[in-house]
């Protein structure tokens, strides 16, 4: 799957890693600032997600990620989103995860990461 990047993100970062993205895709279908993360996020590609999220954090913008298409994300992948929320939270903005699949929401709850004020988790409707 090709990786399509949000034009508002740093072009020098995102297109350069598109080929290395492997098995997840990130597309902006729902208007500006909403990224849709889909597919699989694991050790093989977590660095790609990390660089994309870093670009958003450097710009100090809140991040909205639609997780409805995520079929698998591991703790390292979720950790990237959590770290971003910690860093953005310090600047008064947040990471919003929308349409999180139930297993992903459950893992965030077990880890206690859902209690971080700057990490908003909206579970997908069953």
């Amino acid at each position, binding site marked *: 799957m090709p990786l399509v990047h949000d034009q508002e993100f740093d072009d020098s970062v995102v297109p350069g890693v598109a080929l290395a993205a492997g098995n997840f895709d990130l597309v902006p279908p729902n208007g500006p600032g909403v990224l849709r993360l889909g597919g699989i996020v694991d050790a*093989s590609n977590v660095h790609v997600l990390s660089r994309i999220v870093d670009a958003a954090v450097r710009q100090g913008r809140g991040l909205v990620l639609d997780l409805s298409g995520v079929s*698998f994300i*591991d*703790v*390292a992948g979720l950790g990237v989103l*959590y770290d971003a929320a910690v860093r953005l939270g310090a600047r008064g903005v947040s990471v919003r995860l929308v349409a999180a699949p139930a*297993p992903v929401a459950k*893992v965030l709850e*077990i*880890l206690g990461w859902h209690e971080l004020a700057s990490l908003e988790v909206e579970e997908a409707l069953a």
Partner: protein
Amino acid sequence: MNDLVHPALVYSSDEDFLATNIPFLREGLGAGERTLAVTSRRNIGLLTDALGGDAAPVDFHEARDWLTTPWRALLAYRRYVNRHAGNDMRVRVIGEPFAPERTSAAAIEWTRYESMINIAFADLPLTILCPYDTRTLPAAVVDHALRTHPVVMDEAGIAPSPDFVDTRAFSAELDRIGLEEAPSRVAELPLNGSLDDVRRFVVEEARRAGVASDVLPDLTLAAHEIVTNARTHGRGRGVVRTWTAEQEFVCEVADTGPGMEDPLVGHVEPGEARTGGRGLWLARHLCDLVQVRSGPAGTVVRLHVALA
């Protein structure tokens, strides 16, 4: 203030149970402490009758709902304390174990849990009294209580438990009980492929064995995290094996790495730093039972989930 008090009470009658637990609860209520009693439905009835109108501020939960797995119980207690402690105010808990029919593997992990409380909650402003009913519990469970609790309590007060064993030593002792023999027929996958291959293997074997579809994502993530650990620390060599036994599906990850530095890793909630132990800790919450044996020859982790 932030020091754990973890006494056992061994009792053999309703009168004995009330003679220690009622003053224990009243003392907490008098001090304005938040109080929680996790025990059987029957004992909840005894406590509420004895407390009368004073029972209202006490939170009651049935043990069978609260104590689903050792690690979920640890997390539930910790979250309860974090929510309700504060301003130099301690939390007071009655946590009564119960022993339904369990596999021997589960019984061992519940015994370890009793001792693990000493370390997992060492920094909490918590007093957790664990009553053991000699009428309903196996004798071995009652014997272990005196080894896993630093102090014992009865109506006369609190005193050191002469049989107490340090948690690390006790846990190591339990680890010397070997894992059950795997059946002769197992499905097997070497760990030299991709993580994607591992996840697909585990899902397919679990589905074939009859694991409920809503459990598959949890099991897959647990196996993935353990395999990630094995590949990171296991010198690259290892194997995943799966089988079914006693109404459960077992997924074993074995590596030939140097073993875990800290045998308590993944029992205690990891801190803020996203470092070692988080994957194992998470696996313990996602599965019905997790067994770990680790030494210089390698590490074996077994994930158990119930069949549908």
